[in-house]
């Protein structure tokens, strides 16, 4: 006799929860006045008695880090706690100078939030259990058989965001991480720079027979430093756990590490060796009371968030969801687009403006490597160019060329068009003279046209364009030619 969930035909459902650690953007560290901007600095140059845990040193809460945590909590739709307490999490490791980490445990800063992600089945809401503030550790460096410690990172404020086990696939995990990172960058809480270790992930993975409500035994995978590592580690764990379950075995509750190079997880700690962190309230820091007025002030400081902005771009500008997604992926791009559309005004539909941005402008920005907020073609200048196109002063091809020049010189579109004589000739009187001369010079063609060879019309247009070196307004030319030839 065997139980049904061991059947080789059982479908398993994957259950995933994530813990994300994001370094916050603050001037100083969490509990001292050392600069938190340590990346690339010589080892142990951003340190002081407090973050080195010298005897007698005491922590002082960095208000800016608390503000960033509250802003992130608000952006993640969390309830912001009024009473917050720091606690000591005790464990011993050389990168942890005090022998305990100061963190929020029982009374975290933000709880019960959510983040919406896009799935093939529509929008899915991922619950966020908590977002709390703590301090980062130093870094061990292994060199020539010796282990060295760099404490520059010790005490840098760290935001920990814990999700519920609401994700059911690697795609959902990827979408959650992408959206979460986007929000943190949008609100200026974190650089989200994965290569510099500004975001670090841990995944809880378990499998259960499809349709089952009970959670399976979960495995925690730590030290995931890129989204790719998260995806690969989860894929590896799903396969490993499924193999065990199909063979009738039981998954062990363990903490795993991820070996990126070998593409496999390994056991770091079994359940029996689980740490007892002996949390207790940090006696050096009185509990924090968060004033509601301050929370309101911080809420007001939040920019429009990516999801809302995407929706607005579709509703207000008539963009496709895909284009709206591209234009809101990064806040500076969305800011640029908003400013550009406002400056162009009624002269050109936003959808057309979007095409200009995603086409010509993105190409130039990419080739140039400058952030969009720093390019010489400001939204106002770009709007000047697009207005010339809308007014048919220049045509699209000319506009592309002018934009390139604007990018190089930072000049306004009008200046370049005038200097280089690029304006289309729309002056009916001037074109009339030209058309009349042309018709006088080609009596045969005129006669053949009038005799019914209407295909010659295009040839006449071409002649005018050649004479004006492309600057003639094609609409005006066509109208003049029709008037003359058909009269």
């Amino acid at each position, binding site marked *: 006799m065997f139980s049904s969930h061991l059947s080789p035909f059982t479908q398993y459902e994957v259950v995933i929860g994530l813990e994300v650690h994001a370094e916050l953007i603050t001037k100083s560290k969490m509990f001292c006045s050392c600069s938190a901007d340590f990346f690339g600095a010589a080892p142990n140059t951003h340190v002081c008695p407090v973050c080195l845990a010298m005897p*007698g040193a005491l922590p002082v809460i960095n208000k800016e880090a608390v503000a960033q945590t509250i802003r992130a909590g608000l952006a993640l739709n969390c309830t912001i706690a009024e009473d917050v307490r720091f606690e000591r999490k*005790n464990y011993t490791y050389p990168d942890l100078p005090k022998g305990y980490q100061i963190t929020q445990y029982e009374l975290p800063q933000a709880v019960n939030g959510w983040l919406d992600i896009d799935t093939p089945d529509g929008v899915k809401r991922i619950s966020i259990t908590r977002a709390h503030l703590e301090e980062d550790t130093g870094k061990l460096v292994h060199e020539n058989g010796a282990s060295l410690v760099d404490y520059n990172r010790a005490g840098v404020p760290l935001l920990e965001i814990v999700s519920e086990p609401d994700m059911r696939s690697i795609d959902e995990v990827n979408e959650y991480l992408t959206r979460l990172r986007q929000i943190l960058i949008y609100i200026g809480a974190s650089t989200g720079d994965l290569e510099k270790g500004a975001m670090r992930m841990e995944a809880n993975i378990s499998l259960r027979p499809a349709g089952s409500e009970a959670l399976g035994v979960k495995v925690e995978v730590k030290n995931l430093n890129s989204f790719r590592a998260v995806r690969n580690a989860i894929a590896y764990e799903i396969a490993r756990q499924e193999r065990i379950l199909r063979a009738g075995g039981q998954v062990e509750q363990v903490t795993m590490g991820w070996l990126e190079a070998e593409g496999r997880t390994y056991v770091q700690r079994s359940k029996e060796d689980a740490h007892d962190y002996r949390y207790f309230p940090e006696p050096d820091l009185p509990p924090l009371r968060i004033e509601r007025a301050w929370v309101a002030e911080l809420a007001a400081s939040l920019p429009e968030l990516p999801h809302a902005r995407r929706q607005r771009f579709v509703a207000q500008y008539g963009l496709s969801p895909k284009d709206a997604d591209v234009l809101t992926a990064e806040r500076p791009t969305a800011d640029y687009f908003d400013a550009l559309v406002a400056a162009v005004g009624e002269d050109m539909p936003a959808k057309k403006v979007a095409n200009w941005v995603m086409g010509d402008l993105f190409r130039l920005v990419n080739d140039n490597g400058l952030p969009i907020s720093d390019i010489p073609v400001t939204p106002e200048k770009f709007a000047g160019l697009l207005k010339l196109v809308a007014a048919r002063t220049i045509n699209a091809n000319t506009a592309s060329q002018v934009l390139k020049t604007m990018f190089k010189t930072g000049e306004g579109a009008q200046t370049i068009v005038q200097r280089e004589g690029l304006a289309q000739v729309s002056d009916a009187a001037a074109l009339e003279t030209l058309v009349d001369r042309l018709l006088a010079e080609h009596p045969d063609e005129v006669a053949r046209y009038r005799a019914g060879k209407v295909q010659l019309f295009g040839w006449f247009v071409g002649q005018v364009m050649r004479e004006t070196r492309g600057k003639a307004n094609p609409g005006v030319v066509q109208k003049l030619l029709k008037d003359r030839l058909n009269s």
Partner: protein
Amino acid sequence: MSHLPQTIHEARRLLRSGAMTSVELTEAYLERIAQMEPDIHAYLHVAEAQALAQARLADERMAAGQDTPLLGVPLGVKDIINVQGMPATAGSRILEGFMPPYEATVSRKLREQGAVFLGKLNTDEFAMGWSTENSAYGVTHNPWAQDRVPGGSSGGPAAAVAAGEAAASLGTDTGGSVRQPASWTNTVGLRPTYGRVSRYGVIAFASSLDQVGPITRDVRDSALLLEAIAGHDPKDSTTFSDAVPHYADMLDGGVKGMRFGLPREYFTEGMHPGVEKATREAVARLRDLGAIVEEVSLPHTDYGMPVYYLIATAEASANLSRYDGVRYGYSAKAPDLQENYKLTRGRGFGQEVKRRILLGTYALSAGYYDAYYLKAQKVRTLIRADFDAVFEQCDALVAPVAPIPPYRIGEAPTDPVALYLLDVMTLPSALAGVPALALPADFVEEDGAKLPVGVQFIGRPLDEATLFRIGRAFEQANEVA
């Protein structure tokens, strides 16, 4: 040593009158130290050159017309408080040779006010003890009976002041560590309100209890010294922002009409009759001075000892984690990390410290936390409430400091629990965070030795001024008597 002043204010009078320069005064103290130290061993480090340099600076400031209460006055500092340029051992092997790279706020304040630091004074290891017998660097002898302990953990600071090796000193009081040695050396010891004085740069034993306090020859000096070190410190989030009163100007006024409580629970079994007599006489003296003294009850007093030993050891177990042989202090330099932790801490810490780290670790462990640490915190609020209640009826409490007079070196009660009972009269007020002033009351004769016995006055939070006023009145009455 007739030319050595007895107090800070006397020293200032000499300096101000030009009878002595700060350099001369400092030299006299250094001479006194050299003469007394072989018998007393109050100092772990004498900073001769630095002291003289500070004294020269003070003389220059005086020549420029400056006149502040501590300018040019030689003081000693317990070796658990960081002073720039001097080692800080906390009485522990694990910090042997450690030079702190920064100065404690209290030291900086004293330095700025022109005080001269003679050196660092002995303490029980990490302030865990009653006698300085737990110091890794030898015991300090009681100047009143050299075969006896001076009390502790601030035994060095108390003995130095009693022996005239410093005009005054700074100690720390976690559960009685200033008051008990003051009581045993015939000096004045103040435990300020928790949060009145910055702990920044004071090597932590139990963060929610540690408080720096002056040990002086009289109440006026205590007031002067507290005024100099008290106040809000942006580097210590547990300090009060309340303005610091000019305590020294508030000494007079007496105790006439003041209401005192005499806690019934402080008269324990095993109390030395001399201690009880001294306390009863103190009560009589207060009544003579026009005060009203009534018996009061602090019903949770008995819980003080277990609550203290759970909370203090829990905090200590975390506070002492930083001594891991990685960044500073003693390191066994074992090639394996775990081995290095074990050897460094095994050799670096003494028995009492290890015992308390173990106790605290258990109290915080999963499965024990609720029954021990959390319960202790709850009872702590009850102990606080005891004090709140009695302070609705009285202005201050009068109580003994320690149940026995100083014992002979090496003859401490052998049972740790009996030993822990030594501070039952100082623990509750420490747990409540209220201020308490210990001062000389009497002497008892034992085996031909004259042993000091102190009495303490416990006051409302931040009301040190009242304690000084009481202390001054009591001290004056005692002088006459």
